[in-house]
């Protein structure tokens, strides 16, 4: 057997923190052949990024490799001196980071930055480095490369910035490329284009690639081999086909089940336990059909929003939601979905249009005064990132009590305490956690606090603004199930804003597709996604990496 390009054996990485040392990577052994694309999959805290940083020696000062070795072409690179490693870095291995905009220098033209990367490893005249930079921009398929050479990062879209990062990474023809969540934060269609580009460049130049991602579908679509990490350990390694059809390790089984696909149901996302038992019981209860002729809960007519610059962020948006109904709002970044949800939530004013809630017009009440409206408690919102949706100086208890004090007319005391505890129990948050501050809670717990706060006053309409976008898949699965249960228990209506079509398909009866502030298509969720009528919706649907689609692709 030929020698592999990269081999980690029994690697341990330890971080020293205030509370003693923490082992982030515990005994990882894996190897990578020349030109191979390996998927390194895991949730946050699994040690997947730390493994990548250990290989490229980008661990921060607190992290150390405490045992094991990393062999690159047979040479143990953990023992190399700094200077020797630097010559290896870039020329033999390169890294692509998650947030391309943050990784690029904002005050230097991208052509110069690529030229810098080239001349850091090879001595050459500046003009030659620039010429090579131009070639690289062509290679990563940037339109008008001559013009773009002098562009600054803020003038480019996120996808374009990531292409520039790829150009820099491949500038010295490395044998190994480590891509750490290269497309997280990009829109699905952009994600597909960038990943296709990355794989074709890697194949063309014979580069081995490690794709670090939390997205099983993405790994399945692009990698021949996938390793799954959990809490610093490597739990399973297999071809995607085998891994996803017949996962052996319980953690992999849980992860595969939790990843929403085109055909999954909310009930199947989480393995049987108490929460699921509660869920199934609620789901089984028949929903009384709403009497014919009841007016819709919410009716929106020709809503529009123009900001100062003039261009309309949202135009001609009309929709209806009945009580207990769940409506999805999907679109890519900049499509106006957040603006729309905030107008409906009466946090910002619309420029035109009418919002009618339970037969009463609420669109004319200025957003500035809406906190005094009796409808304030009926329309609540769950925010995208649980990390910044809780006041850092409020405990979980204060967060949930806040709407009860403001809108529920309650006073501090035993009744309030009981009510907050009841809300916490409804969202599955342990009562002991109520005294904690947000930074002492995990992402999933913060999400639960955010949901408990939103449902505390028993609203009729809940606007969910990408409620699970910042969560790990297994946590997302539990939160989605929780939301669906709450909806059924309270006959709550949802306006579910998301970019994740698989999630929307599961959660919503009807879906509206938004592009550049206008409705492109709407209809019953499953039917629409199975048979999209417009080219844009079709493009969206096709760009979503599915585990099944990945299997089909790798099978051929």
């Amino acid at each position, binding site marked *: 057997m030929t020698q592999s390009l990269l081999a980690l054996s029994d690697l341990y990485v330890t971080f020293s923190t205030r509370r003693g040392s923490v082992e982030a990577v515990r005994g990882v052994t894996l190897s990578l052949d020349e030109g191979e694309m390996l998927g390194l999959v895991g949730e946050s805290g699994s040690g997947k990024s730390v493994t990548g940083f250990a290989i490229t020696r980008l661990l921060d000062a607190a992290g150390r490799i405490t045992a094991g070795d990393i062999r690159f072409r047979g040479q143990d690179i953990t023992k190399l001196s700094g200077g020797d490693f630097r010559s290896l870095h870039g020329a033999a291995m390169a890294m692509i980071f998650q947030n391309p905009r943050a990784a690029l220098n904002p005050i230097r033209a991208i052509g110069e930055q690529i030229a810098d990367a080239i001349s850091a490893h090879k001595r050459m005249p500046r003009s030659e480095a620039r010429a090579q930079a131009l070639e690289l921009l062509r290679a990563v398929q940037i339109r008008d490369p001559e013009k773009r050479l002098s562009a600054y990062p803020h003038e480019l879209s996120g996808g374009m910035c990531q292409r520039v990062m790829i150009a820099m990474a491949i500038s010295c023809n490395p044998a190994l490329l480590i891509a750490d969540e290269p497309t997280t934060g990009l829109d699905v269609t952009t994600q597909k284009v960038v990943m296709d580009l990355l794989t074709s460049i890697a194949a063309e130049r014979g580069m081995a690639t490690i794709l670090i991602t939390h997205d099983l579908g993405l790994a399945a679509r692009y990698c021949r081999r996938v390793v799954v990490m959990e809490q610093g350990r490597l739990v399973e390694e297999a071809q995607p086909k085998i891994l996803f059809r017949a996962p052996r390790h319980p953690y992999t089984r849980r992860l595969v089940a939790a990843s929403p696909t085109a055909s999954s149901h909310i009930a199947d996302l989480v393995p049987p336990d108490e929460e699921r038992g509660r869920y199934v019981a609620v789901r089984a209860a028949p929903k009384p059909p709403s009497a014919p002729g009841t007016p819709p809960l919410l009716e929106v007519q020709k809503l529009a929003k123009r900001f100062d610059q003039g261009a309309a962020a949202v135009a001609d948006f009309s929709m209806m939601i009945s009580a207990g109904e769940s409506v999805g709002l999907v679109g890519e970044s900049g499509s106006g979905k957040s603006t729309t949800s905030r107008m409906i939530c009466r946090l910002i004013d619309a420029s035109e249009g009418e919002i009618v809630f339970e037969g009463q017009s609420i669109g004319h009440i200025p957003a500035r005064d809406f*906190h005094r409206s009796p409808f304030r408690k009926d329309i609540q919102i769950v925010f995208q990132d649980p990390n*910044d*949706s809780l006041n*850092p100086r409020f405990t979980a208890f204060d967060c949930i009590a806040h709407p009860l004090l403001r809108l529920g007319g309650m006073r501090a005391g035993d009744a309030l305490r009981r009510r907050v505890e009841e809300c916490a129990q409804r969202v599955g948050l342990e009562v002991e956690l109520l005294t904690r501050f947000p930074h002492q809670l995990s992402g999933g717990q913060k999400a639960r606090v*955010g949901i408990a706060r939103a449902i505390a006053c028993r609203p009729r309409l809940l606007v969910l603004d990408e409620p699970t976008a910042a969560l790990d898949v297994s946590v997302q699965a539990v939160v989605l199930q929780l939301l669906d249960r709450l909806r059924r228990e309270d006959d709550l209506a949802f306006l579910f804003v998301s970019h994740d079509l698989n999630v929307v398909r599961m959660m919503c009866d009807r879906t509206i597709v938004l592009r550049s502030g206008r409705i492109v298509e709407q209809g019953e969720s499953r039917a629409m996604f199975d048979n999209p009528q417009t080219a844009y919706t079709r493009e969206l649907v096709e760009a979503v990496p599915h585990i099944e689609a990945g299997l089909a692709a790798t099978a051929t």
Partner: protein
Amino acid sequence: MTSATLRHAGWILRGNPLTAVAAAGVLLLTLVAIFGPSIVPYDPIVSDVPQALLPPSAAHLAGTDQLGRDVFSRLIVAARLDLAIAVSAVGISFAIGAVIGAVCGYAGGRLDRAVGRFVDVLMAFPLFVLAMAMVAALGNRVENIIIATAIINLPFYIRFARAEVNVRRNLGWVEAARACGDSHISVVLRFLLPNVLPAMAVQISLNLGWAILNAAGLSFIGLGVKPPTPEWGIMVAEGARFISTGKWWLVAFPGLALMLAVLCFNLLGDGVRDILDPRMRT
């Protein structure tokens, strides 16, 4: 202060001994300001001419001045006045500046631009000269020193609070507060201001040192506190006449007191931020 906060403060101070030294210095200064006048060995005002211009000795730790007053007693008594001027000036500019800045940072738009330009104009003047002009115009009184010092400190607080609030105004928890039934004003006062306090505490600590220096500077050039009131700036000014004759203790000790006070406040700044930031606690 809960026990967790105290434990956290202890941890920060252990990891950063310089902050601990500065904190001890500020504590000492505060104690001296509170209890000093009642424990000093000599009356700081009454002159005792036969004892004039004695060098430091066991009886007069820091020597005596040209009127025979004990320099050490005057130093101790002056701490109260200097600290009081600094604390009230910084307190006023912080209270006003933080609210104006937070409102501007949250509201944006025309109000923000108008206040921003006003602050620019204020900062275009040499601040010490501005303070001099104000004290000269308003009259040589302690209140006027406080007002002048507060006004020249104001721009820093406005800018600081504005910037800190501005980066937070679009965060989820600010919108959440509105969805929970809070008005704009309540969001600014009850949510945003408490969250920018830790960052501003650093500014306050740095500013206290600066305000002491400013008050002393005004007195030194004859504006503000008048003799025979003991005040560090006046003591330096009066002592300056005697340097050429080798009576160094008249200037050296008040100068040293000023330097140490300013140094302690400045060093304390960073430590304060680490202690007050809830995210640093685990």
